[in-house]
């Protein structure tokens, strides 16, 4: 009997094909990529413990847990608000779940969601035009600035959406979607953005 080799897949690995999609002329208006190799922990404060959780978070991650819809860049992790008294810790694959367990012991309940979500990066000068076709939120820079986050629904699918640091002067959005919905949403985004021309980047590891 031999030890088994476990090859991991990502929610989009079957249909994520790097290259150009849709309109082929001119610069691609939208760039998409699935990011992988992250750990994701849902942290839910226990009753009356939110203050302690925020404090513990500051001690462990250098930033207090977000109490409003924001994605806070912390030490080695991104802290994404996901609801009242709860948030997500997104970290590169490693020992992030263990760190969270230690940091919030007794004050928060943790559920690992590393495999439960697909993480999609959306950028390009027409990223907002694509998102306008699937998302009801106002993503104008004055309304949805860098670090803004939202728990919303896209294409009838619950998602977490946030805005990262701009890249080359253009807004960058991140979308966290339930893994089993990911292929469906991906196809919807390809259809919606086809008129702008989509560059699909090679999938890669998420970095804070």
């Amino acid at each position, binding site marked *: 009997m031999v030890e088994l080799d476990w*090859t991991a897949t990502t929610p989009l690995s079957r249909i994520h094909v790097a290259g150009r999609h849709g309109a082929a002329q001119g610069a691609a208006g939208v760039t998409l990529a699935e990011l992988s190799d992250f750990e994701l922990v849902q942290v839910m404060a226990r009753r009356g413990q939110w203050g302690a959780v925020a404090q513990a978070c500051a001690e462990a991650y250098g930033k207090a847990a977000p109490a409003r819809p924001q994605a806070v860049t912390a030490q080695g992790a991104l802290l994404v608000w996901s609801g009242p008294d709860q948030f997500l810790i997104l970290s590169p694959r490693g020992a992030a779940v263990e760190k969270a367990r230690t940091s919030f012991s007794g004050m928060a309940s943790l559920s690992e969601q590393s495999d439960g979500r697909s993480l999609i990066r959306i950028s390009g000068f027409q990223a907002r035009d694509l998102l306008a076709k699937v998302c009801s939120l106002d993503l*104008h820079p004055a309304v949805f600035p860098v670090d803004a986050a939202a728990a919303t629904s896209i294409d009838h699918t619950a998602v977490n959406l946030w805005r990262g640091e701009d890249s080359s002067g253009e807004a960058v959005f991140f979308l966290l979607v339930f*893994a*089993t919905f990911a292929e469906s949403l991906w196809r*919807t985004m390809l259809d919606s953005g086809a008129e702008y021309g989509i560059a699909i980047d090679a999938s890669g590891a998420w970095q804070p």
Partner: protein
Amino acid sequence: MSAGGQTHRLASGGLIDRGKPLGFSFDGQTMSGYAGDTLASALIANGVKLVGRSFKYHRPRGILTAGSEEPNALVELRSGARREPNTRATTVELYDGLVAASQNRWPSLSFDLLSVNQLAAPIFVAGFYYKTFMWPGALWEKFYEPLIRRAAGLGRAAPESDPDHYEKAWAHCDVLVAGGGPAGLAAALAAGRAGARVILCEEDATLGGRLLSDGGTIDSMPAADWVARAVEELGAMPDVRIMTRTTVTSAFDHGTHAALERVNDHVPVPPEHQPRQRLWRIVAKRTVVAAGALERPVVFGGNDVPGVMLASAVRTYINRYAAAPAKRLALFTNNDDGWKTVDAALASGLTIAGVVDARAEVSAGQRALASKHGFAVLNGVVDHVDGGKAGTGKIAVALAGGATATLEADGLAVSGGWNPSVGLTSQHRGRPKWRDDIAAFVPDGGPVGMVAAGSANGVFSLAGCLKEGHAAGAAAAADLGFGNSAGAAPSSDDDATYALKPVWHVKGKKKAFVDFQNDVTASDVALAALEGFQSVEHLKRYTTLGMATDQGKTSNTQGLAIMAELTGRSIPETGTTIYRPPYVPVAIGALAGHHRDENFHSVRLTPSHHWAAEQGAVFVDTGLWKRAQWYPKKGEKDWLESVTREVKAVRSGVGFCDVSTLGKIDVHGPDAGAFLDRVYINTFSSLAVGKARYGLMLREDGIVYDDGTTSRLAEDHYFLTTTTAKAGPVMQHLEFCRQILFPELDVQLASVSDQWAQFSIAGPKVRDLLKEIVDPSEDLSNEGFPFMAVREVLLRGGVKARLFRISFSGEMAFEISVPARFGDALVRKLMTAGEKFGVTPYGTEALGVMRVEKGHVAGPELNGMTTAADLGLGKMMSTKKDFIGRVMAGREALVAPDRMVVVGIKPVDQSRRLRSGAHIIKKGEVPSPDTDGGYVTSVCFSPTFDQWLGLGLVTHGRERIGEIAVAHDPLRGEDYEVELCNPVFYDPEGGRQRG
């Protein structure tokens, strides 16, 4: 391409591009026009007067308007799968190769057999169908309805599915301006300058509104130059968005609007990757409705003859499109605005046959114009117009003094005054208010945050529109706190008088139309009044006045006025019907958007989906999920053969099934056990860590809600599973319980449905297979891993998994959970490692067969009508604690002894097929609702027992075990004997699953 056929094209002028000729065809006849034309203007330029037949009488009809309010000129646009019925020729931008056909005529537009309906007109009055086709009822479906459908109706929809793509999108702004005429442009400029985010929507392809037709002077420059500068200024503002070919159709709550963008209706086929239309939902903090006004006809005999056209439309065709609706034109007006048509016609070299003005006095300027150009100004009204498909003939005038006169013209321009477009402002049930000075309804407020400006608000002069539009835009921005200067309001010295004298209806003998699209005449309104249908809502339903694609935009006010006169009320007393969205027709395709065909709804894929697809699995839609239903093998002739093989393999060897679709919920916190005690009928706080238990939830009303297996992974951590169908609803229910019902409990919930790939592995050889996967250090023996045990195990290669010793099939079984990213790898390993044991993947059908054999209840029994006791699970209801549904479950009817309860059912003739839905009748009784004793809920062909087996809900079922009853199936015409039996057919002692 020659312009040879364009007999009515003016030699110069217009906003058309004479350098870009376009060819098109109408009813198979090839014609030409220019870029910038609409289909209507091109038809006019080609001398076409007859464009369609009317709805009921098949009367010849021409073009009445130049906008989206058009009731007559409806055509079938395009051909084949793209054929689009009831398209208004007045809004179709001409493109090269356009194909259009007239509607509602047979065999041809010019020779229409059904125009004999006109001869029968005396019987086709309002309420005709209601009165005529009442008896005998049996004839309705076979005779009357097909007959009526053939005779009436408009265009034909394409039978093929639409090859084009539609989509929806959201937009947000501070100030939405609906309408890009002078008032709308002024509003957008003011709000934009103040710093607000502005969206300006214009239905037309070009901004300017009436300026495109009427010109004028603004800020001392020609209107066209001012529009160009305004567009340039708006374009330079980063937060102003101009959307042309976009109609704001609907106003919903909280500043949400619908707007239809015709992205590619002006080209034959949308460019690759582009939609034909896009339905916008625009969320605005403030809305300025600058939707303009619509001119209204006058009701007189023959007012529907081709060649009778609204005066403003005549002007539009002449000035904007350089197309002459007539060469010798007469005008019938009751206001000064109508006279502008005389100016336009004369400036283009057309002849004026005469002006009929209902007002006793006309201005000195107008008199001078008449004498200069040698036409008569007759004080009176048009009594009737003769003519037909060739156009207008003699125009009979009733002079004010009682005498008559006749005009000869090939066109009659009519102005009965203007109606502000009150559609959007009235959509929240606000009724518009009447203004006597302009004899029209104007908005009386509107939805919160919405104001009307310009002619939409009853201001008809250019100067007034500019001023009011600017003020509305500035006020909206200021109201939102934008402090920049809104700049100066654009000004115009064009402050023309309107001086309207209302004329609604000229009574006469000839058919006088109120609603052209529905062929509603003045006498129909009179009949409705006579028969008591005097309320405007009744008037609308009884006569169909104001229905169909134009929703009475050119007819409602005249209809009200006639009804008011007949009933001795004022027009405001008579009132208006309710205004509902959308303002203009919206194609169903646009409402569906992306969500059609394979994108009808989102699809969820299991972790083993791609592997299963490689195996050739047949998938079944289960909610949003695609689940493997069975895995056909080469040579198997039908599903039953495949499913039978899968069941036998599990019962005799080992098989596995992806059960990741079950809802999975982490229940955390110190009070997690107490919480579960309240939501389940049985107790979970006493469950030991490392154990699983079957749980049943009730609704508040005591009926069973959902079931599943819940495990205790730690003192303060349970892992709850739901059925596939109820995963979402149970999560919502639990959140409701946690947040609202039991806020005192320290409990946290997280959906982890997608985190885990979960497989049920079942059969006598399950341990053999698992040993190939699980690390040898793990003890899987009955002692080391007893029935209903749960724990984390190490797999070979270092991956951690959760193992649950639970069984749905009745076999020795485990469920194994791995992080979803290893789901695909796990299923492949099960196949390779299990090869020597004959491992067999099985689908939902085999799963269903085994659960029926085992007597487990599922969806057909958890049907929203059954109690725990009905399902044979009454003993699970704890008497030592309270739980949701406990009290209501004790209601008399829910504990009645004659309730239908779950039993097993098998045909006495073992070769017989049992069918779901068959009713259970006592032997010897005549089947009837009174003798109905329940029904068959679930069936399967059991390979284990080599016969059909079923479960059913049967009255007094448990006391009747062993009874031979009759399965009565009137749907399939079958009656056969069945035996009522214990629902657990397979291994009732449970020895196989306990090992």
